[in-house]
């Protein structure tokens, strides 16, 4: 792109064309919103933890919970076992809380909302209709929406800007709001479930998150309710030198169903930023949860400068019999990814599914996979993981399948495929399998391949350029996972897969 900047544009070529060419191949969401922000002092200490708790107007028990997590965190060491390398993070040299000054009080009308905030949502592709709702304008929820509805919770740095379709969801009994609001409005639910799936002392980053999480989403689906629309959360990091620590808590009560989507972007910067999130899902008897992620954090430039460090702990607890969970993730962004969405199959006949595409280009590093812990009888799990490495990237699949003694007649099937594009990248597979009973069956299939020259030649013969041909081959390679995504995300993910690999060939 630097070369393009220096190129003299010919006379007669309009600015729109020049901008379109400039944008192609670059990170689409790398722009920054210049908005007045309010920061907590740099670093993390008990005072910062109390300050975050105060800003969210939390009750005393929550502040105590955070402080005890912080105390534990100070005694913990950063994990080093993952196949990723990055310079040491100075946890005292970043902000742990940042929010737009205009969000100090919830705006009452669209006119009160900072126009820059509205412009941000417009640029991110959130329709104007939703903008009104995101800004918290009363009555906007009742206006008819076109097409299929998706309720959105928009998180901007450390705060949730707004949640759409809350009133309509409330009619069905579904609670969908920011976690800070849930702590204030539904403390009994939060107290009952928070930290029961991912304990505050689970791991270094989860413990840090427990101490300093600022916002996130909360979902409660009551017994027997099928959530009338898809729920989604959009995470946007905007402020420089600020970490984002969000917490998501989803509770699917007996016989309920919910599909939840998650998307994220960040500005293009030369410095790295930390994102440490925790997602907890509780699934009761006969309930089902689908959780889809399209992760598109800034991955750093072609020389590995900048990008987001994405250290995430996600876990679903299938507590009830016949409960089901499905994780689907498309990981294309972030400089370093450390993420293992897990399923604890506690209830008898419960099922866990994990579908993943992890794409690493240039200097990206991804150490990702899943854990399937079979505790109940006749539990079933399926893992389909597709790793694609290009440039000088390193991609690792790390998975655990554990069959406990009481998990009689349980089944697991794992398919783990890696695709290499170029001769300087790496693909690694680290499967752990533990079977502690005689009646369970575990299958593991793995392949490593490179993009076949014959396939590329065939495509190029039909008029495609090399990048289009690679995108086509890669999309074919990923189709099992793309099919598992909800329709709204599948097309976006398909395009994202192609864009992420731009510049990886030739």
């Amino acid at each position, binding site marked *: 792109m630097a070369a393009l900047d220096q190129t003299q544009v010919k006379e007669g070529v309009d600015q729109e064309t020049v901008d379109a060419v400039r944008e192609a191949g670059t990170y689409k969401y790398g722009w920054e919103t210049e908005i007045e922000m309010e920061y907590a002092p740099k670093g993390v200490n008990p005072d910062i933890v109390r300050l975050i708790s105060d800003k969210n107007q939390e009750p005393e028990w929550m502040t105590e919970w955070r402080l005890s997590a912080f105390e534990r965190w100070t005694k913990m060491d950063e994990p080093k076992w993952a196949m990723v390398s990055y310079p040491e993070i100075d946890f005292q040299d970043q902000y742990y809380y940042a929010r737009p000054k205009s969000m100090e009080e919830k705006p009452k009308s669209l006119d009160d909302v900072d126009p820059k905030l509205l412009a941000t949502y417009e640029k991110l592709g959130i329709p104007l209709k939703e903008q009104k709702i995101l800004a918290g304008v009363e009555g906007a929820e009742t206006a008819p929406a076109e097409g299929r509805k998706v309720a959105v919770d928009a998180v901007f740095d450390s705060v949730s800007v707004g949640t759409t379709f809350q009133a309509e969801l409330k009619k069905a009994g579904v609670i969908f709001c920011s976690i800070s609001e849930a702590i204030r409005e539904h403390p009994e639910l939060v107290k009952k479930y928070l930290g029961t799936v991912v304990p505050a002392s689970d791991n270094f980053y989860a413990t840090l998150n427990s101490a300093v999480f600022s916002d996130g989403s909360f979902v409660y689906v009551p017994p027997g309710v099928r959530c009338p629309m898809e729920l989604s959360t959009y995470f946007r990091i905007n402020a420089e030198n600020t970490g984002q620590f969000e917490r998501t808590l989803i509770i699917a009560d007996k016989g309920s169903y919910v599909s939840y989507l998650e998307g994220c972007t960040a500005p293009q910067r030369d410095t790295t930023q930390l994102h440490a999130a925790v997602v907890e899902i509780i699934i009761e008897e006969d309930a089902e949860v689908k959780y889809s992620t399209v992760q598109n954090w800034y991955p750093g430039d072609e020389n590995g400068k900048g990008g987001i460090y994405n250290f995430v702990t996600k876990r679903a607890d299938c507590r009830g019999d016949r409960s089901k969970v499905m994780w689907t993730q498309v990981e294309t962004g972030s400089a370093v990814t450390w993420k293992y969405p897990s399923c604890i199959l506690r209830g008898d006949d419960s*099922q866990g*599914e994990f579908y993943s595409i992890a794409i690493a280009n240039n200097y990206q590093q991804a150490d990702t996979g899943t854990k399937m812990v079979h505790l109940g009888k006749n539990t*079933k799990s*399926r893992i389909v993981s597709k790793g694609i490495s290009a440039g000088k990237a390193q991609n690792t699949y790390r998975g655990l399948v554990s069959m406990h003694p009481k998990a009689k007649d349980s*089944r697991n*099937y794992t398919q783990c495929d890696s695709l290499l594009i170029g001769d300087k990248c790496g693909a690694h597979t680290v499967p752990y399998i533990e079977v502690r009973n005689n009646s369970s069956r575990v299958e593991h299939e793995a392949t490593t391949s490179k993009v076949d020259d014959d396939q590329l030649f065939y495509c190029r013969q039909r008029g495609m350029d090399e990048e289009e041909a690679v995108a086509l081959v890669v999309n074919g390679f990923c189709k099992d996972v793309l099919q598992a995504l909800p329709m709204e995300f599948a097309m976006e993910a398909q395009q994202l897969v192609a864009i992420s690999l731009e510049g990886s060939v030739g």
Partner: protein
Amino acid sequence: MTPKPRQRFRKDDVLTVLGYALPVLGGLLGVAYVNTNYMDFINPVWAVGGGALLGWIIARVIRKTLG
């Protein structure tokens, strides 16, 4: 003596076709079942074979009953 005009669909023809069509349909249903209920981890060979066998048995029963 003028020959009887041939009926468009004779019972024998239908019964003969059933003998081939039902096993094929059974096999196809077996494939569909395996794909929609993939978490049951059923071996597709058994599903297709079982479906075809079931179709053949149903066809036999129909032929015996109606033939």
